[in-house]
């Protein structure tokens, strides 16, 4: 058959000469590539002594935010759960009673709020959907664990520390200190 392009090479099936059979030149060529890596920049780091910086848009574990008075911002509107493509978020709402105004920002709040980190794909659509600035993805990657149960994050695990009661912990969680 006539070649369609001029890129095809005819395979040379001639028997190798003695010099070629010694492979000296080819071994030298190969070793040159190997040793040249000594002078190149190392692609690895000594984890965990050294850690790489995260990208500024890194998305890690969820955080449920509070306002400056320490009240929970979440109103259990369900938009995060609606936006979630992995259906990882579930919640149950409750009505704020009289006397609970210092705990919850609005009339309605999330009595229970759970994120299933086994399902979560950390896409960040929940924080985009949130109309109350309540849910954020932090810079903490989800820690590994041996049990599946530990990947169900409840409201207590997600809530940011109260800025009025634990200002230090709050600052740390915000990454300010």
């Amino acid at each position: 058959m006539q070649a369609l392009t001029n890129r095809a090479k005819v395979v040379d099936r001639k028997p190798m000469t003695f010099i070629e059979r010694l492979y000296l030149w080819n071994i030298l060529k190969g070793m040159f590539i190997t040793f040249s890596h000594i002078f190149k920049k190392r692609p690895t780091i000594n984890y965990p002594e050294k850690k790489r910086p995260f990208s500024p848009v890194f998305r890690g574990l969820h955080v449920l935010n509070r306002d400056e008075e320490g009240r929970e911002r979440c109103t259990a509107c369900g938009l995060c759960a609606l936006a979630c493509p992995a259906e990882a978020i579930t919640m149950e709402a409750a009505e704020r009673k009289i006397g609970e105004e210092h705990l919850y920002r609005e009339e309605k709040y999330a009595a229970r709020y759970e994120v299933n980190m086994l399902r979560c794909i950390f896409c960040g659509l929940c924080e985009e959907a949130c109309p109350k600035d309540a849910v954020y993805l932090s810079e903490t990657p989800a820690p590994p664990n041996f049990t599946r149960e530990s990947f169900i994050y409840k409201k207590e695990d997600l809530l940011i520390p109260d800025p009025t009661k634990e200002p230090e912990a709050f600052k740390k969680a915000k990454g300010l200190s």
Partner: protein
Amino acid sequence: MSEQLIKVTIDNITLEVPAGTTILNAARMVGGEVAPPAMCYYSKLEGSGGKCRTCLVEVSKGSEKDPRPMPKLVASCRTTVMEGMEVKNITSEKVIDARNGVVEMLLINHPLDCPVCDQAGECDLQDLSYGHGKAGTRYEFPRRTFDRHDLGPYIQLHMTRCILCYRCVYVADQLTGKREHGVLDRGDHSQIATYIERSLENDFIGNVIDVCPVGALTDRTFRFKNRVWFLKPMNAHRDCPKCSGRVTLWNRGEEVYRVTARKDQWGEIENDENGKTGWICNECRFEKKQTSDWVIEGPRDISRQSVISQNHYLKVEEPQNVLPEVMGGRNPKLLMDIHDVSDVNKPEIHLSEIQGPATSQTFEDNSNINPQ
């Protein structure tokens, strides 16, 4: 006279309608985008309409005999068609502009608490403001506020969200058979008040929830229980001595969270098989919260544009489960049952059965929730 058909052109679409039809109803015959939005007009309620001004249209030609255009935009729900009339709705810049203004006006005192409001997802005002509203407000004064009010054990009144469409007043008037005026005071202070509370004894007063275009009147038995888009609407019926008994159930799993009348594409209550409006009684609406009370007809058809149909997978064919076959008849071992870990949606707890909204007490003490 009623058999006489007259020709009318709406947005360059010509159709023949019976004499005496309003422009709005003629436009609804065309359907789709051509039908102007209506917040106060309700075809099932006599005398409704003419208050919200969202259905304004431009009449570019009055009639065949008098072809002059009408000087101002007219409320299409109150203006009847004339022979040869030409109407511009979405084809008119003026109408779109006026409608944007009306929406801005309606939203002046609206609290915009959609994340809290139970009507969110099926709210006419929400749809309207997404279509026509501005992102910001030009209003600099504190908004008009009222305390929320319990109208009996079943109905919650949030006067702050009210747009004064008078639909509930007409319902109270026309279904209860008493002359009741529900709106007290004037202008900025006008509010739906005690008169409507007085007629709460009536068996059909729950229908004010369905006619309310905003979240001002909501179901207390459903309050904060769930969001409408997480529920599955199902057509169902039961033999009710008082009403037609044809309803939409809003289920989640086996639980009935809410019962409403069936609404058509204009958000109005559908007619039953006898051609009467399918108002439903309070017993059907508030007290029959068991699936066993109802005969389920099938899933309700919800517009694909609605948030309610979001994440509802219809006509799903489950793939054949080959695992037991491959594993010699054994089912795969379940490594974690989510209900063992999760506190949300416990199968033994029926949130839909507690009276009124859940509070912190409900969640502290599970004995308040009927175990089943």
